[in-house]
């Protein structure tokens, strides 16, 4: 099997999230991990006389875990996330991710998300940057394209 020459890492990945005014903010510099779970909703059944399981599929959804580095500026990740959570109603916001970067050929993921939860532990004994974890759930259509601009 041929050894890939195109393996990439996420060092230069880009993350964008809508702020309260609907403007996409580049939060790459204030977040340090994004974890995607692409869920394909499967159902299964067996029928009489047939030994093999049969399956069908229905819904698709994406769950995202975003880790933000705690900082104070309004255009950075934590302030946007807190503002999102405290807004009533919180509503949907756009999340976009470029992987491995935004050059031609990169993957571009885009969709609308709801904020499911925010979590941060404020620990006076920990000298590391405080991390806030946001759980996002996709709402409606999600797209995956190859960057070609």
């Amino acid at each position, binding site marked *: 099997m041929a050894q890939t020459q195109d393996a990439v890492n996420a060092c230069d990945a880009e993350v964008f999230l809508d702020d309260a005014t609907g403007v996409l903010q580049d939060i790459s510099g204030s977040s340090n991990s994004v974890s995607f779970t692409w869920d394909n909703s499967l159902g299964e059944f067996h029928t009489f006389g047939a030994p093999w399981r049969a399956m069908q599929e229905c819904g698709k959804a994406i769950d995202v875990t975003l880790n933000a580095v705690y900082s104070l500026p309004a255009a950075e990740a934590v302030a946007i996330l807190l503002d999102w959570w405290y807004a009533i109603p919180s509503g949907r916001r756009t999340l976009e991710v470029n992987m491995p970067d935004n050059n031609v*050929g990169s993957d571009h993921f885009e969709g609308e998300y709801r904020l499911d939860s925010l979590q941060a532990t404020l620990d006076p004994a920990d000298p590391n940057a405080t991390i806030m974890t946001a759980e996002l759930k996709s709402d409606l259509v999600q797209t995956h394209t190859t960057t070609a601009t």
Partner: protein
Amino acid sequence: MYRILSALGKGSRVLAAGSFSDLAWLSEKQRDRLMELGKIGTVRPPPLAILPGWKRRAERFAVQGIITVVDFLEANTKELVEQSAKTGRPYKESTIERWKKDAKEWLIIKPRVDG
């Protein structure tokens, strides 16, 4: 002309997989990169003559060096009208545009949809 093998994002526009484009806004190096990644491929267009109902038409265009669907799509419509006028049987510009639309359909691969 390139076949789009994986949906391409051009700003807020998406070029669907199965469609085709000249990708004129990209540099040769950028197109080569997409080719290398298998996101696009070269179009191997069918000859006009094999499209249903195109035999006579294809013969007339062949005289002008237009053999394949892509040759036809890339040809200047006004020039095609002018060339046809010289034969005494002119085509209308709107007719050529309609044929181009039809011919384009033969290049588009519809996405597979199954249960």
